[in-house]
């Protein structure tokens, strides 16, 4: 009898602990604590990393395939038509707070100095894959467009629409100018497959996979992320509350 009661009591304690946690997490104070923790992680990571590179692997480490996740085949007429034409007319716009807006063709992008890197891709879900990515450093493109002094973030616009919203992402200038941040047009020395973001995708190697925007159409320099999308700096950030700083 006493045992049953005690068990009931423990179960009730457990349930109210859980309900309490769930509630606290959704209060403003809870959210403020989560946000603070996110930015402390970023500060510590930047302090310790100090601009250094992530590990680059040997060719033997490349995983036999490279998983595609999220959108793996953008479902819209314009993208379909571009894919059917082999992405020959694809353009990458560089706009926003820049002194010289650009519109780059695939040939322009291939003509820039290239960086090739074999890196590990870590998905927020927990899995990892390794591949070789090739393309110009984002810093070269930003320097050519001449970033205005007010610019603080780089926004990446994409051709895919997921669950009714356009995919986009953003990063700060520290990541934008990191030597391994490239606009990739090749995976394992072949043009990007559609599931991995053809014809262009970002590589932002110090962050989780959802930051590496695929099907890239435009790069926009901005002073604030407040007026972009729902203001949290990315599709998953807006939709599900994922960290904007996804280096954790």
């Amino acid at each position, binding site marked *: 009898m006493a045992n049953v009661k005690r068990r009931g009591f423990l179960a009730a304690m457990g349930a109210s602990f859980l309900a309490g946690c769930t509630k606290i997490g959704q209060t403003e104070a809870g959210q403020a604590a*989560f946000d603070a923790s996110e930015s402390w992680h970023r500060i510590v990571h930047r302090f310790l990393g100090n601009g*250094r590179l992530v590990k680059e692997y040997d060719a033997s480490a490349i*995983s036999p395939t490279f998983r595609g996740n999220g959108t793996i085949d953008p479902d819209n007429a314009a993208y379909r038509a571009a894919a059917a034409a082999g992405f020959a007319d694809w353009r990458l716009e560089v706009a926003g707070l820049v002194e010289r807006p650009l519109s780059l063709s695939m040939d322009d992008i291939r003509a820039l100095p290239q960086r090739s890197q074999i890196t*590990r891709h870590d998905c927020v879900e927990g899995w990892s894959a390794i591949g070789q990515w090739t393309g110009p450093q984002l810093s070269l493109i930003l320097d050519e467009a001449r970033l205005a002094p007010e610019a603080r973030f780089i926004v990446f616009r994409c051709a895919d629409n997921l669950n009714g919203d356009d995919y986009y992402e953003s990063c700060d200038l520290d990541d934008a100018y990191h030597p391994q941040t490239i606009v990739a047009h090749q995976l394992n020395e072949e043009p990007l497959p559609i599931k991995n973001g053809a014809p262009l995708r970002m590589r932002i190697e110090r962050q989780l996979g959802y930051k590496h925007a695929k099907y890239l159409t435009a790069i926009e320099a901005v002073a604030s992320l407040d007026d972009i999308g729902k203001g949290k700096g990315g599709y998953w950030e807006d939709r599900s509350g994922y*960290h904007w700083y996804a280096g*954790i």
Partner: protein
Amino acid sequence: MTGRKRHAFSTRLWHWINLVCVVILFMSGLNISNAHPYLYWGDYGFRPAEAWLSVPRFPGWATIPDFYSLAQARDWHVLFAWPMALILLFIWVAMLANGHFWQDIRTRRREWQVSEVVRDIKAHLRLDFHHGAGKYNFLQKLTYGLVFGIILPGMVFTGMAMSPGLEPSFTWAIELMGGRQSARSLHFILAWTLFAFFVVHVLLVILSGPVWQLRAMITGRNPKAATPAGEA
């Protein structure tokens, strides 16, 4: 010992803050596990067919929050990683400084003799918790030592090794663990090792007199001062 606190203030502070952190980290961790419940060895891994372990799905009553949300679970997890790691650093400094580690946790060579260990295990099985002059017997020293020295620091290290933002400054540690997916597998194994410790630990506290044990761990009050020696 009579008259002295059974547990130092630093130990009591660490013990209860750590409990809150570890419970939240474990339960939010189980929610994170639901996102991709397959574990791999090596640097990469994403195909369930190549997993060494396919983890069962954890139900809502075992996770924080109590429904599937990778984003919110990660919010809780990376927030409580801070106090857990910092208080661990604190207790190590305090234990080394106040002598608790040297006197009560460190084991001596002679305690490792098989006959001694067997006697200890037998006494435990008889639920006989007398252990002479020392604060903890050999098995307690060993398990507490493993918790302080291996499991909890291991959780922090393997946790840090999974963060891509730490990778540039932590490459050596990831390589030491055999790659990021190995670090993730080790993190998971250590989490369940800690859970096993937790169950046995709480059971032994209940069996050995939960009231004085808890009072001692909260207020520090030394039971030997008040209760018959047999009970302590």
